[in-house]
């Protein structure tokens, strides 16, 4: 049985943990709001550039671009987006387990990870990592999206890999997240009838050549912004339940402490009464 002193110490430390959880929960909530805003702000551009790509592919069917080349798939590259930090419940574990499963299943899959958690996970399991991007900015950044797009595009164009897939966590709402798996390269476009044939200046090929990499970057950026919102929401939920658990623990410990204190007092009184009785 724990002594009264031990109990008091545990109550105090649990209470301060509870405060930390609460602070982290509120920070995550604030960051979630910002991340959601950024993810939403990226949508119109992504939508428009997808539409434009479809129009262009529809207007001139014979357009070619290195990132458009469909080849027989021998090697696949999997881009996994995780977080730099933990304390986010199942956020990192879910996606990493999914990723590891994919890698183990097909022998010819390379991995590019975003986030320290993902890098550490694959390192521990001796899965070779083609490239790792850590020390992520606090907000989804276009620079990182560009660098990552360039990197994987080069691997694709060089022929190291014949297909690039994207694995990230999609933010559904504050409580629901979903691991999302998409083919990133080769870029595919739904060719749409452009309606009135537009004038292309200078020509469709040149526009296409500029459009494709930007489209890829926009997609990657959108995925990273989405994943960041999911990360913050996961952390918020995890910290919320940690705070609640700590609260329950404190309640239980307080009850035990009171009972123990009461017992000690009763014992003391009994001894006093016993002593007085003996003196009579």
């Amino acid at each position, binding site marked *: 049985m724990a002594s009264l002193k031990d109990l008091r110490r545990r109550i105090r430390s649990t209470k301060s943990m509870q405060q930390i959880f609460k602070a982290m929960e509120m920070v995550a909530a604030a960051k979630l709001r910002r991340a959601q805003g950024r993810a939403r702000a990226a949508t119109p551009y992504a939508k428009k550039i997808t539409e434009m790509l479809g129009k262009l592919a529809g207007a001139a069917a014979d357009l070619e671009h290195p990132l458009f080349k469909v080849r027989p798939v021998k090697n696949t590259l999997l881009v996994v987006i995780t977080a730099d930090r933990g304390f986010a419940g199942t956020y990192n574990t879910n996606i990493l387990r999914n990723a590891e499963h994919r890698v183990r299943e097909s022998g010819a899959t390379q991995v590019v990870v975003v986030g320290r958690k993902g890098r550490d996970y694959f390192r521990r399991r001796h899965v070779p990592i083609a490239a790792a991007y850590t020390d992520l900015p606090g907000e989804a950044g276009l620079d990182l999206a560009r660098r990552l797009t360039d990197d994987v595009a080069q691997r694709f164009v060089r022929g190291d890999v014949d297909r690039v897939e994207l694995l990230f966590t999609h933010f559904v709402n504050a409580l629901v997240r979903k691991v999302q798996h998409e083919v990133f390269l080769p870029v595919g476009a739904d060719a749409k009838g452009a309606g009135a044939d537009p004038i292309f200046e200078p020509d469709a090929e040149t526009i296409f050549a500029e459009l494709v990499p*930007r489209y890829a970057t926009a997609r990657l950026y959108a995925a990273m912004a989405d994943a960041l919102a999911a990360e913050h929401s996961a952390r918020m939920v995890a910290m919320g339940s940690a705070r609640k658990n700590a609260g329950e623990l404190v309640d239980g410990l307080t009850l035990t402490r009171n009972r123990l204190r009461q017992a000690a007092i009763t014992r003391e009184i009994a001894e006093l009464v016993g002593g007085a009785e003996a003196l009579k």
Partner: protein
Amino acid sequence: MATPFQLSILTPERTVFEGDVEYLEVPGSQGYLGVLAHHAALVTTLADGVLTVRYADGREERMSVSGGFFEVGGNKATVLADSVATGG
């Protein structure tokens, strides 16, 4: 008074402008383009340069854009720029 048309100026990170304008000048890669309502459908790449919009009330605004695309058609114009800086 010229007829207004719809314009959206987008970057990967945000929507810079969305609304009606009556005149637009964009730095196309083949030279500056002036656009009024009912412009013929056109798609072009953008150069780095200054974009000018004139709103329905005659007010003009300039912003500097770098790289990207410009599309117009169906009385709707869209600027997809890599980055846009609006003057203070």
